[in-house]
């Protein structure tokens, strides 16, 4: 059975290590914060200028001057800091953020990612996504394996305008966990009950299957 959004987030949370500085994109990535294993502590960076993001506020503690990059009202945790956008992206560009988790429209088997524009239909802008994917060492994409029309989002080559080239390292979808390698998408894990054949059918790009593929353990 394919993973739901929360399960994708829960699987991605397994990528986190104690002490990691983490940037979470909008959508499924935001949910990852809810599944950080109890035994580790990570620090959330929000590119609009903060480290140490906490939960959403209560009606009493909400403050219009305290938002995340998704423009949601939030809170901060002990040890937090606030700074300007240039410093924020100095952290990102300088490789100080340990892992970036973001959504995508498409990922290619070279690790290219398209996530910000659908010509003729949608141009909201790239925000900080281009800076994030061009800089982070460790980039994980969280997305559905196929789009609403049933077309694969894991492609030989992206069809939409790119956000970055050769940058995605790992992808977690509703069907599988995959790594981008020199030879294509390497299948690492499959959703419980989902077969390798189903994943192969849903993947337009080259899929590498070596040995037994274990099920995702949540």
């Amino acid at each position, binding site marked *: 059975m394919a993973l739901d959004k929360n399960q994708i987030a829960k699987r991605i949370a397994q990528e986190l290590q104690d002490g990691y500085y983490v940037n979470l994109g909008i959508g499924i990535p935001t949910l990852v914060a809810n599944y950080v294993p109890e035994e580790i502590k990570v620090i959330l960076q929000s590119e609009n*200028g903060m480290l140490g993001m906490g939960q*959403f506020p209560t009606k009493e503690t909400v403050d219009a001057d305290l*938002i995340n990059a998704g423009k949601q009202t939030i809170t*901060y945790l002990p040890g937090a800091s606030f700074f300007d956008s240039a410093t924020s992206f100095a952290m990102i560009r300088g490789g100080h953020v340990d892992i970036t988790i973001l959504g995508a429209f498409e990922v290619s088997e070279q690790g290219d990612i398209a996530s910000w524009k659908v010509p003729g239909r949608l141009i909201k*802008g790239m925000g900080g996504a281009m800076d994030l994917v*061009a*800089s982070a060492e460790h980039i994980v994409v969280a997305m559905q394996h196929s789009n609403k029309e049933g077309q694969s989002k894991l492609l030989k080559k992206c069809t939409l305008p790119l*956000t*970055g080239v050769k940058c995605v390292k790992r992808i977690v979808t509703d069907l599988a966990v995959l790594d981008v390698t020199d030879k294509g998408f390497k299948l690492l894990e499959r959703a419980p009950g989902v077969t390798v054949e189903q994943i192969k059918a849903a993947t337009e790009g080259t899929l590498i299957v070596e040995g037994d593929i274990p099920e995702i353990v949540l």
Partner: protein
Amino acid sequence: MNKTVKNATEAIQGMKNGMTMMFGGFGLCGIPENIILELSKTDIKDLTIISNNCGVDDFGLGLMLQRKQIRKMISSYVGENAEFERQMLSGELEVELVPQGTLAERIRAGGAGIPAFYVPAGYGTEVGIGKESREFNGKMHLLEHAFKADFAVVKAWKGDTAGNLIFKYTANNFNNMMAMAGKITIAEVEELVPAGELDPNFIHTPGIFVQRIFQGVDYIKRIEQLTLSK
């Protein structure tokens, strides 16, 4: 030296058609509400605006969009604004999209006398079209140029008569760098105090970058995405 002006009306003296202006803020957080409102009551137009976002339909820079005062927007993200989308698609509004970190750094560079620098963001994408590229440490980078403005308009939490500014939480965002990059920088603040009252160890924007300052009124601070814990 006292940089205080009376209000928004006095602060915008000298703004003219065709100018390039920067406006601080991220979404609706930390935007200079007073100056935007004041400017939206004038007939000043054909503006090139550098701002991370363009407000929403009926608030922030959206007000100036509705009155068609903006000729060109330079931003990283412009979603959530129907009138913006309409003007952009119809060609009334020119839009230059810049990756957010590159935008921030280009503004800082403008203020810091650095005409150009290299960053990896956008290489291999539309953003790189027409730009010089070059390899450093085995990775391709784009040459990006500094942004400056005739006026930079910023909003701070506290300020003093010497122009020193302090921001609250994430309302800093682009304000600090933009203050550096304006030929004339106008700061509106929630609380204006005499020089000497702010701790000099904790100034975010040193007064040298600010030419005019005033205490704003009637801050609305609209929240775009009110999200509460259950």
